[in-house]
């Protein structure tokens, strides 16, 4: 009945009752064991190699990702993020995406591509921070993690949408990055040009909350028509009070001209980058950038 079960121990040779020690292994059994050992070593190398391959993007120093608001500094962020995507699920404008294989060790970690869809704080309370189960996104950094100088905001940022509420501020102590006019030669405000039509064309899929349309429901930017004499979309749509304004500044040639100027309250949310109607955008967020005076 048990043809397929091997007997427990090989039958002991009858003429050698003293030989209680292991019987010598046959040649084929030895060969089999050797092969098994080899396979084990190969599998070990393969899996650990695959695990360590995640470090390649770090070695090649990829351009840094814009992380969701309240993210710890990059290294701490990657070590504490459990890659569950709960921040993705709560975002009302779907600003947060999860990184893929090319991000190596950061596979599954959340980031924001502000040009496609910025964080416009239309959730009012930084929901992603609330959703994070491991404190990767946090309102209060633990004491042993120091803030980099300039990363800290001088005051809690005032959300313009909530300006008249009893509590108008966002519970954020550090910035995600800082907006920078990276292509001034393209900026419509600098050129003194106006803008008509939807900011990013009719096919743009990005969404934003417009207080004048609906406080609680973000709408597609493609559905909103602008008509401005002199372009100030970045200033007009910035959700943070006092973060950006159009100022008259000296151009490199000494003449006076208008230009968007970023101020200290900028949290680096990326709305200006998303709304900028030039292609490519004139203003961009530098992720993890600190405020320099």
């Amino acid at each position, binding site marked *: *009945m*048990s043809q*397929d*079960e091997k007997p*427990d121990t090989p039958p002991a040779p009858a003429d050698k009752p003293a030989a209680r020690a292991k019987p010598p292994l046959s040649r084929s059994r030895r060969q089999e064991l050797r*092969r*098994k*050992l080899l*396979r*084990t070593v190969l*599998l*070990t190398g393969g*899996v*650990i190699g*695959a*695990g*360590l391959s*995640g*470090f390649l993007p770090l070695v090649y120093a990829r351009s840094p990702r814009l992380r969701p608001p309240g993210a710890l500094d990059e*290294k*701490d962020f*990657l*070590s*504490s*993020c*459990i*890659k*569950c*995507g*709960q921040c*993705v*699920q*709560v975002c009302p404008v779907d600003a947060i995406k*999860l990184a*893929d*294989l*090319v991000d*190596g*060790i*950061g*596979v*599954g970690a959340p980031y924001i591509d502000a040009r496609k869809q910025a964080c416009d704080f239309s959730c009012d309370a930084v929901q992603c921070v609330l*959703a994070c*189960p*491991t*404190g990767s996104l*946090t309102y209060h950094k*633990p004491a*042993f*993690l120091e803030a980099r100088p300039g990363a800290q905001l001088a005051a809690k940022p005032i959300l313009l949408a909530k300006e008249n509420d009893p509590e108008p501020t966002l519970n954020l102590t550090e910035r995600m990055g800082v907006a920078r006019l990276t292509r001034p030669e393209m900026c419509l405000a600098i050129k003194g040009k106006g803008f008509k039509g939807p900011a990013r064309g009719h096919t743009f899929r990005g969404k934003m909350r417009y207080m004048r349309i609906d406080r609680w429901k973000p709408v597609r930017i493609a559905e909103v028509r602008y008509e401005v004499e002199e372009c100030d979309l970045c200033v007009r749509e910035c959700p943070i009070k006092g973060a950006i304004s159009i100022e008259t500044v000296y151009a490199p040639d000494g003449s006076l001209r208008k230009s968007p100027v970023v101020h200290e309250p900028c949290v680096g949310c990326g709305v200006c980058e998303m709304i900028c109607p030039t292609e490519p955008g004139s203003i961009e967020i530098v992720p993890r950038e600190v405020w320099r005076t």
Partner: protein
Amino acid sequence: MSNTILRKRFREQILVMFGREPKKPEAIGEEAQKIHLLKRTGNKEKLQAAAAHAEAHMSTSHKWRNRRWVALLLINLFFVFSFHYDIQILEGALTASRFIGFHLIDLNSALQVMLAHRNIITNLLIGTGTVLVLWMLFGGRTFCSWVCPYHLLAEWAEKIHLWLVREKLVTDAPVDRRLRTVFWIVFAFLAVATGYTVYEAISPTGIVSRALIYGPGLALLWVLALLVFEVFFVRRAWCRYACPIGLTYGVVGILSPLRIKYSLENCYHEGNCRKVCLVPHVLDTVIKGRAVHTEVPIGPDCTRCGLCVDVCPTNSLTYDVKGLSKLL
């Protein structure tokens, strides 16, 4: 064949008529041989039992497998629908989630984060504790076979592998099982040493779970590579020899009251259970002469998948909750 035997027999019967002594037949038909064999086992009761046993072998049950597949798919689809239809009941992925507001955090992921970040916030602790208690009650590695989406993919890949083995196109090349313990230590060490959750980058459980919920990505290529490896080279390589999640939950299962129980009395020691098992080493007790008691619980590495329960023709392997049978 049977005609030749009967013709020979006919000639002999004629010779017997003429005075020759009847002698033992040289050849017996196959079917008759089977019946002879059965009769040799003894009395009529035993004969009937043997017939019933042979019948039990014929009927294949997939009761527990089907239940398990439904449960596994429902749990994973619950995550997917909860997000896509904004039901907000089960948010997150298998690494960490929130069920009606309660944090649930995968033990191995939590361990990686704790070791890498060395800072444990309350929510992380609550979620880990909840999951620890949950799987302590439900059997540790039950997570593997009843929840992990990679397990299901690997189970299907295993079917292809076994078909290829039957066709003699591939052979299973087993690997040293101590490797999984080595991996567990290596990945824990890497988390501490590098400060990154290295294992999370290659965890097929996390990758498949996120792919289901948030959409597929290139990371699935790694999962595909693993499956190809399992189909052509090593049967169930990841779940058997590599996955540290399995070992973590296995340790949790040590204290679990839910397990598979082996009953020695009716077992024929045919070993079918060991052939279908993901972790056959836990079933060593079913080998003839190994059971230390009439009823022996199966070890903690068992994933409580129920394949052995389905395949056993004598009901010698059953689900059991420790102490429950005494209470009832």
